């Protein structure tokens, strides 16, 4: 076990290293990416707040992810109910169809969308990006919500029924509260999936309409990178770690993410 422990902690160090390295690099006083940093200064962290293009891309990512997460649940939840309770004959085929987008490489899918959107003029538009994200996040939301829906106690609904509630009232007052955890988990993980997505956003967001990952990528690949990028990277890492810890301690991460396979 000792050998295993050492191995695991080496792996942990290697996994954390790329993320941790962004911090000292971002602390440099010059505008070069170098380690050790030349001079120490918080100017690059501060410059995040003055970099209009960057801030706009953050806002764009945020609203995109919010929209995608909300729509994803709105579409996947009725779907989960229909599949779980509808006694459909083609249930298996349906489930396969709904989860099939995740089986296609994203690069193939995004190319298909790119050439498809052009004639219908959805290319480079926010709506197109939302649609693209929905296609790849809904399978995941569906899986998660299907599990939640299948664990509902239907006697609660029957009791509510007999007590005089309409189906709508039963859904609002009895069913939704029961689904609370699944809905929250679905929302958060779908949000993360959309926020962090690069491939789809790269091809489908217009010039000047870049999401945060795309903005970072462009600066890394083409435009020339100042230490503000390591700075925002580090901020993202901190947020990501905090989010993970909070989620793992409350609703548990393995339970929800592992359902995707």
């Amino acid at each position, binding site marked *: 076990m000792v050998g295993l422990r050492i191995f695991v902690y080496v792996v942990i160090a290697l996994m954390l290293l790329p993320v941790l390295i962004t911090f000292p690099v971002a602390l440099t006083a010059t505008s070069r990416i170098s380690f050790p940093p030349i001079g120490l200064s918080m100017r690059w962290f501060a410059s995040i707040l003055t970099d209009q293009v960057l801030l706009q891309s953050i806002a764009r990512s945020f609203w995109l992810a919010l929209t995608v997460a909300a729509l994803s649940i709105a579409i996947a939840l009725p779907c989960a109910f229909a599949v779980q309770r509808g006694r459909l004959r083609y249930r298996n085929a349906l489930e396969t169809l709904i989860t099939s987008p995740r089986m296609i490489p994203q690069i193939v899918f995004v190319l298909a969308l790119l050439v498809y959107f052009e004639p219908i003029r959805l290319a480079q538009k926010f709506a197109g990006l939302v649609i693209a994200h929905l296609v790849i996040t809904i399978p995941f939301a569906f899986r998660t919500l299907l599990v939640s829906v299948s664990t509902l106690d239907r*006697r609660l609904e*029957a009791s509510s029924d*007999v007590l005089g*509630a309409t189906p709508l009232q039963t859904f609002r007052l009895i069913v939704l509260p029961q689904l609370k955890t699944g809905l929250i988990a679905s929302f958060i993980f779908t949000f993360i999936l959309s926020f962090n997505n690069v491939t789809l956003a790269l091809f489908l967001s217009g010039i000047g309409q870049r999401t945060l990952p795309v903005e970072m990528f462009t600066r890394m690949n083409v435009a020339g990178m100042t230490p503000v990028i390591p700075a925002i990277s580090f901020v993202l890492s901190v947020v990501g770690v905090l989010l993970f810890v909070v989620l793992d301690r409350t609703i548990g991460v393995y339970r929800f993410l592992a359902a995707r396979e």
Partner: protein
Amino acid sequence: MRATANPVLRFDRVSKAFQGQIVLNELTLEMQQGEFLTLLGPSGCGKTTSLNLVAGLLRPDAGTIFLRGKPVDSLPPRRRGLGLVFQSWALFPHMNVFDNIGFGLKIRSAPSTEIRKRVGEMLDLVRLPGVGEKFPSQLSGGMQQRVALARALVTRPDLLLLDEPLSNLDAALRKEMQIELRRIHSQLRVSTLLVTHSQEEALMMSDRIAVMRSGIIECIDTPQRVYNQPPTRFVCTFVGEANTFKCRVDEVAHGEAKLSCGALKIVVGARPGIVAGQTVVAAIRPENVVLAAAGAGSGSNDAVIVDAVFKGNNISYSAVVGSEMLNVVTPPPADGCTLAKGDKVLLSFPKSKVILLEAGGVDA
């Protein structure tokens, strides 16, 4: 209970099948206002299905159900004016006791003052004052049971449906709740339909018992008559214990019929339809068999004790007459001397306690 003009519930040749299996077979019954009727039977007999049909959670394949004289086929559950308590109680886990009980009133947009008053009344009725703020997970089984009952009754339903509500309780609690249910019923006089497989429950709480088997009602009568004068072998052996014997009618004379089953001899009062040479099934309950020491009286059967089990408030003997085995139950003797294996005794069967069932008797 005299039949009144308008029974609160009526089944008119109701049938229901699931995946080709017939669960209810032209079921017909009437339930009177204010009555406590129990549907009693083994699992699979269709009793829970009947309850679900009344509640509107299922639709009959054929036949009609009437509530207060009106057919209810097109009415969804929420418009039938019923109360329902499940075996698992099904309390809403995300609401506290007060909100659970008040749910039916809140749905009807009752003003909050009235809700508070009525919920308070219900909590007093089920003897649970002051738990309004608690959540179901904080309550014991017995308390959840009472809350479920209060929730069903707060809307003053015309008919209360209970689906094996006591099965999830331990024995002591079950007895306590049986008394409670009976008390609440007599206090409110609410028509109550109970579904159970426990004959003790049925005997203890009901005004009438409907014994069901394979989708039909074999007998519907007061507990006393169901117990003392069961019409079929199934009812006889399902409700209470019984020793059954396939007997030959040896002789009918002087108002008596003499029956014999091997070495066992039984004498009953003659009744129409009994003639010599027939085969009948006779039954007698273990507590009605009279046990006497060897050598006393006539008209008795010689028996040998094979086993004796002390059960606290009674003693259960297994005795053999010829090749027939009997179960006899007696209260513990005053002098404390119980019989033991190998003892010889005399068994006799009082005429009035012998139950005659259909001849031959389809195997229960």
